[in-house]
């Protein structure tokens, strides 16, 4: 499974709150708000995947989104909260055995960069490189999902998780 920023952020926020013993407010997570998928279901689904892959570009988005979320939820004291978030994030990625794949920006398909931005273009490039393994992208982004369908690139939108675990 190649993780896009949305599901990855939800998983990391869920773990960040859990590690600190804070109550989990599902409604702050897009997977719950938009797709009715709880963070435990997301975790359970990822636990069944043969491989978890991420591309570094996704972390730029995760960083921005995490900063916004932490700013909203803590108002102040962001610097410590963000430092702890990243500490938890690195540990989580290690313990889930995530595999980091590099994609060179200058080798990305400019058609995808122009249309979807560099992070999504990197996800597509990674999925194309892993074509033989048929590793799908997991995303909250229905636009990316639609584009992948047209290009016959394996991709799941987060609500597909419900079908795969029932």
């Amino acid at each position, binding site marked *: 499974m190649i993780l896009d920023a949305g599901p990855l952020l939800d998983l990391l926020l869920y773990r960040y709150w859990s590690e600190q*013993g*804070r109550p989990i407010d599902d409604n702050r997570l897009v997977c719950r708000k938009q797709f009715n998928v709880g963070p435990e279901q997301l975790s359970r689904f990822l*636990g069944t995947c043969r491989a*978890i892959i991420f591309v570094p570009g996704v972390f730029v988005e995760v960083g921005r989104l995490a900063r916004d979320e932490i700013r909203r939820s803590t108002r*102040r004291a*962001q610097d410590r*909260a963000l430092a702890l978030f990243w500490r938890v994030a690195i540990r989580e990625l290690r*313990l889930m*055995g*995530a595999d980091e794949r590099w994609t060179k920006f200058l080798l990305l398909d400019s058609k995808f960069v122009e249309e979807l931005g560099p992070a999504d273009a990197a996800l597509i490039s990674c999925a194309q490189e892993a074509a033989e393994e048929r590793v799908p992208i997991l995303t909250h982004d229905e636009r990316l999902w639609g584009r992948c369908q047209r290009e016959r690139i394996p991709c799941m939108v987060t609500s597909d998780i419900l079908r795969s675990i029932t």
Partner: protein
Amino acid sequence: MAKINRSERGGRNGSERVKAWVYSVLNPLMEALRAESLALSKKYITWRYTSAEMEFIVPTRDLISPTARPNYDDLLRGYPELKPPMLRRDEKVSALLESALKCWEHLTRYKFLQPIVENYLKQWSEEGNPYPGGAVPKDEFWLLIAELLTNNAGDLPFHYTTKPFWSRFRQNILPLRAGLPFSELEKSITELKKTDEALIESLDQARSNLCDEYDIPAAPL
């Protein structure tokens, strides 16, 4: 008309300073201590094998964001009644760290745990299961298990590669939390939890007093 003690913004003089105490020190501190108390009730001490330290259980000042620490220092000057319960907590944190280090030494120094874990790992691999340590190097896997043992870990999250291994062997591994170092650890956990709860009460009382006195809300609107 007599001039009353009001700042230009209309609040009582000093209310901005008090808001800084409440919003950037007292509130985050109470939240962190409540989370800590919950973790301690599960005997989870946030131990990390990579640093041989407790990740989230730290001295009181370190629970505050670096940018807000001047407000913390100012609070202790302006409200010195809070200093003794904070110092008491810091002493208990040090005592817990010391107990945890003794447990860690007990588990790792004489490598009594290492052959046990490696035996389970061998059995696991011979049954055709993939390596359960994620990105943790193979020679550190037993240390990861020692960390779980020190933290009295229950069920792990589903997405951890270690989950199936831990679910299978934890009933054999967790009973190794025995002996003098672990009974000392349990005692330190109980004492810190008690001190945390007393500190939360003092902080709550202080917030209440300050909010009443300066007519400010307990959280920013």
